[in-house]
């Protein structure tokens, strides 16, 4: 694990956090969505650096490319008007409570992950064939879950069309 590698990992992680912070504080939904796309690109870089190249690729294709486009499309469809009209931060009390909950949650997660984690698979060189490592278990052990996913997608398509259809 080289030095260059480590520094890049930190840079992309911090960029992801900075973009996420910019995302929560933007008033305009379009600006928020674009910052979230930036976060997703940085996460994709982190995935690739952790030897999950396929996940990194579909992160860009599915999340940044499909899901966020759907979000932007809905923002365009609803025509929400000027950002100042839709300023939507809650009051001071809600902000304080949210900050408190956030600090407690962060402390809990950091305490939990302080423990040393046992390694159950030996450390090996990253395999050249990244897809087979995922495709093998996906189509053998997790075949039932994979098939059920198709039913879920069908239900989501039918549900979305039914809900968004204009009733005549």
């Amino acid at each position, binding site marked *: *694990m080289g030095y260059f590698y*480590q520094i890049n*990992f930190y840079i992309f*992680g911090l960029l*992801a*956090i900075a973009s*996420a912070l910019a*995302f*929560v504080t933007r008033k305009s*939904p379009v600006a*928020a*969505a674009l910052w*979230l796309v930036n*976060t*997703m690109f940085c*996460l994709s870089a*982190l995935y690739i650096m*952790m030897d999950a190249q*396929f*996940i990194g690729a*579909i992160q860009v294709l*599915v999340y940044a490319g*499909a*899901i966020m486009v*759907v*979000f932007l499309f*809905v*923002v365009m*469809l*609803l025509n*929400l008007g000027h950002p100042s009209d*839709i300023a*939507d*931060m*809650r009051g001071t009390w809600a902000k304080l409570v*949210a900050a408190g*909950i*956030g600090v407690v949650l*962060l402390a809990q*997660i950091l305490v939990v*992950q302080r423990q040393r*984690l046992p*390694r*159950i*698979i030996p450390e090996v060189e990253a395999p050249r064939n990244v897809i087979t*490592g*995922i495709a*093998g*278990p*996906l189509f053998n*052990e997790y075949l039932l879950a994979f098939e059920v*996913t198709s039913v*879920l997608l069908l239900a*989501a*398509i039918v549900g*979305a*069309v*039914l*809900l*968004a259809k204009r009733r005549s």
Partner: protein
Amino acid sequence: MINEALFFSAVLFTIGVVGVLTRRNAIIIFMCVELMLNAVNLTFVAFSKLYGAAGQIFVIFVMTVAAAEAAVGLAIIISIFRHRETVNLENINLLKG
């Protein structure tokens, strides 16, 4: 590297939670939920380095569920907007009683 990834994931998840609690625009709250799902995905990928490829397969399933959720959720938001002309959660209080 795994510990750093878990740290980044924890921070991103917390930012998502704070966003859900402080924003009132339904679309932005939805995007915060997506951010939380992304943070969990980062944890899954980090653990897949320790415990094998099952973590990466779970990431694929989480992404599928996120796509389905985005489609249905945004359809619900469009439907609400047609009826009430707003996506501000303060004004959507039909179930408050």
